[in-house]
């Protein structure tokens, strides 16, 4: 009498475990299909140089000729991209963090109007901004400059950064800020010594995305540079592609090198990336 239900229970348990393992296997298969192009990019980058793509399924005899060519051709461009991306992180955080704090904690009357403007700004097509900036930069001498590109790339990141940091700073209880103010701290001190440390995670998320957005930028690199002085790596890849690709392994090696920030950050900073992916998109 008593043993039968126990066996049933054990069987159900085993069945459940088996099913959940099945789901893991299925999940791995889905992921493998989705990420196949990325595998293929890595695989193609390790094939011997040439203008054809006769790659084997596995890079059994890896050749690093593609990487040698990529670094020789695009090494300086990778450095340019790095400078621009780090600059964008700094500009974005310096501009967005105080604004996020203000929108979260101050009781201005026009806060909802400000938020609406930020939401709409995110929807403005990049080509509209590029069109106007080209003319303005031409007059101001900001074409082919780091400053010009950093500021333009910040348009990808600032609205997003304000929204994501504000969401986090709204959750700081007003009483915490008030307590500091009673102790004599001004708004500026309260911001630096209380709000920023509490919102550290949101700051990291905003900074990471500012880096990735700027690193990925192609449109401003394409339109706001007219010479070869400063050439972000995305533009380098575009020029490699041309109309006819002459050296696929170099193209793919550059593509792999350009993917490293995203891959590395997704693996080591998964928590922050996942927070940004959900938080920034809706609000």
């Amino acid at each position, binding site marked *: 009498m008593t043993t039968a239900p126990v066996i049933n229970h054990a069987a159900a348990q085993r069945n459940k475990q088996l099913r959940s393992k099945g789901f893991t296997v299925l*999940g791995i298969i889905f*992921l493998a299909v989705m990420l196949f192009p990325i595998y293929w990019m890595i695989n193609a980058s390790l094939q011997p140089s040439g203008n054809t793509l*006769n790659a084997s399924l596995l890079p059994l005899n890896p050749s690093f000729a593609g990487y040698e060519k990529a670094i020789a051709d695009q090494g300086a461009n990778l450095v340019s991209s790095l400078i621009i991306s780090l600059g964008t992180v700094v500009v974005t955080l310096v501009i967005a963090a105080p604004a996020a704090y203000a929108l979260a904690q101050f009781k201005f009357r026009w806060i909802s109007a400000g938020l609406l403007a930020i939401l709409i700004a995110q929807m403005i097509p990049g080509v509209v901004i590029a069109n106007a900036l080209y003319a303005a930069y031409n007059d101001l001498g900001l074409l082919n400059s780091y400053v010009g590109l950093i500021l333009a790339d910040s348009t990808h990141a600032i609205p997003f950064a304000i929204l994501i940091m504000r969401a986090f700073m709204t959750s700081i209880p007003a009483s915490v800020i008030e307590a500091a103010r009673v102790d004599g701290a001004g708004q500026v001190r309260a911001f630096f010594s209380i709000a920023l440390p509490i919102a550290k995670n949101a700051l990291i998320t905003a900074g990471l995305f500012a880096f990735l957005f700027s690193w990925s930028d*192609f449109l401003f690199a394409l339109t706001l540079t007219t010479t070869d002085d400063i050439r972000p790596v995305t533009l380098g890849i575009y020029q490699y592609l041309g109309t006819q690709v002459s050296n696929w392994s170099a193209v793919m090696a550059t593509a792999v090198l350009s993917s490293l920030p*995203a891959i590395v950050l997704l693996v080591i900073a998964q928590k922050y*990336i996942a927070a940004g992916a959900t938080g920034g998109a809706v609000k």
Partner: protein
Amino acid sequence: MTSQSLHSKDVVIQTPRQKPTARKRSRFDKETITKILFVVPAGLFMVLYFGYPVVKNITMSLQDYTTKTFFTGEAPWVGLQNYATVISSNLFGPAMLNTALFTVGSIIGQFVIGLGLAVFFNRRFPLSGFLRAMLLLPWLLPLIVASATWRSILDQDSGILNQFLGTFGIPAIPWLTSPSVALIAVIIVNIWVGIPFNVTLLYGGLQDIPEELYEAGSLDGATGWKAFWHITWPNLRPVVSVVLVLGVVYTIKVLDIILGLTNGGPANATQTIAVRSYQESFVNFQFGVGAAFSNILILISLVFAIIYLRANRRAVDE
């Protein structure tokens, strides 16, 4: 502690020197000014990098703005002539149609696959969180990297896709070189890029549906597909409308993928309004005409932005 007590002592010493009302008022002003200074940098940036471009695009579209303008500084007003040029150009009709097909095709593909994956990952199983996070990768890569990778995959003679299809006896398809399939190829790549975004938002929506609803439903016999139609779908609807509208707004302005894959070709088969705007301004140096194209893009975005804001407000209310 010490610095704070010192500070309050300072205040005590200062107080007798000033009239209380004057002090209070000046402190209030200083406080307001400090508060405003928090938003000044962001406000300035928004005006210069979002406000100015929108206004400039409107004025540019009413001017004969070309390379010559940069030398002479002259851009004569031409009224609506640029818009007339745009609408009467041979490429306007096809570009509008391609924009619509590209947007609708991309969104249907991204949404259906994204919803399927979101529902799948909504169950808890070992590694589900890790696998779902890794799924974000296509979205985080530079779009031009995605373009380069897919160009190698879609290559007619030696690309892996045609080799794979060849094993089933399917003849090599000229994905990016034939006007009849190039748009489909570009849509496929854009679907791949957009899936992670859809999965993430829809997964978030699924997580917000209370477990009790499913428990109550299963008592009434609603499981599997029935549970999906009667519980999941109605509860997910607000998120769905946000995902779809944002999808439209982000898809109609796509430029990187098309420029990287086909540059609008072959034979203009992948020309969209965004590509026209770019090429008129930065290839033909007809900035006025380019601005007119991009204003059409803004107008379409604006319509969907209004729909989005209404859908979003509903989602918040509910």
